[in-house]
């Protein structure tokens, strides 16, 4: 079960609206490598994790991703406050505005709505953890790309924090993969799926 804490993981206080930047950052909410996909990926995969360490890791990182959904949403919310029709039109926010006004909707920077196609839950912990390592790197580089377009320090600071978390999660998933492979036959990790096949006990 989950309990809500009425605070952000890291402060977000943005003074100046910037709908063009909001549109780019939206990708980290509902895009192919965004936080919504991350949370659903780990919280779905955890049931197939064969050890308590990895069950814990997927649960706890998945939970942290929920707080990142909230941070990214807060950034978008604050970047799109008090907009004038002129700002909306000139900064290319008009198409989003027609569909959602300034409501928060999970969509990629290129306008594709969020989809579960962005992640897998294979039931095989080695395959899942390799996807998770790639996912953290893809999210990291997306934050790097966002930072290329963000000059406002009010925006850069929370984005840099989120970028850093991808690197820490990558490290922890690397350790999780090592834990799973160590418990298997080291000459052939792929001999069977430890979460599905039940090899005969000696």
């Amino acid at each position, binding site marked *: 079960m989950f309990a*809500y804490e*009425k605070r952000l993981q*890291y*402060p977000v206080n943005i003074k100046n609206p910037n709908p063009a930047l909001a549109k780019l950052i939206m990708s980290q909410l509902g895009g192919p490598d965004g936080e919504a996909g991350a949370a659903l990926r780990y919280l779905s995969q955890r049931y197939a994790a064969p050890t308590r360490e990895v069950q814990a890791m997927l649960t*706890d990182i998945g939970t942290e991703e929920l707080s990142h959904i909230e941070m990214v949403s807060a950034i978008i919310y604050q970047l799109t406050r008090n907009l004038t029709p002129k700002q909306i039109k000139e900064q290319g926010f008009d198409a989003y505005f027609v569909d959602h006004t300034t409501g928060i909707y999970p969509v990629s920077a290129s306008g594709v709505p969020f989809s579960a196609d962005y992640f897998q839950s294979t039931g095989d912990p080695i395959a899942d953890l390799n996807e998770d390592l790639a996912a953290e790197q893809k999210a990291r580089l997306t934050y790097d790309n966002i930072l290329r377009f963000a000059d406002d320090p009010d925006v850069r600071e929370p984005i840099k924090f989120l970028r850093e978390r991808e690197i820490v999660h990558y490290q922890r998933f690397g350790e999780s993969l090592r834990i799973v492979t160590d418990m298997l036959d080291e000459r052939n990790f792929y001999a069977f799926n430890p979460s599905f096949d039940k090899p005969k006990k000696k």
Partner: protein
Amino acid sequence: MTKTDKSERQAAMLRVQQLSFALTEANLYLDSHPTCEKGIAYFKKHKEALDKAKAEYEKKYGALCIENALDENDKKWKWVCEPFPWVSEYERSEG
């Protein structure tokens, strides 16, 4: 609300955020290193400080979690009286 009030509240919130972050880091590390004595000691130390920081924040500025939403003498549901966390300091000061 005066400027000093605002910065005191922000400082109290930052203290909660910093200590809670220390626990999150220790939490993920301990998931893959569950017998690390240094990690266990680090978690315990910061947990104690976090409990104090949260209690201090909640006493002055309102509940962080629903369990603490009502004090003994409260007659109204204060959870809906304090802003939600996506509201920036700038929006708060607009009133």
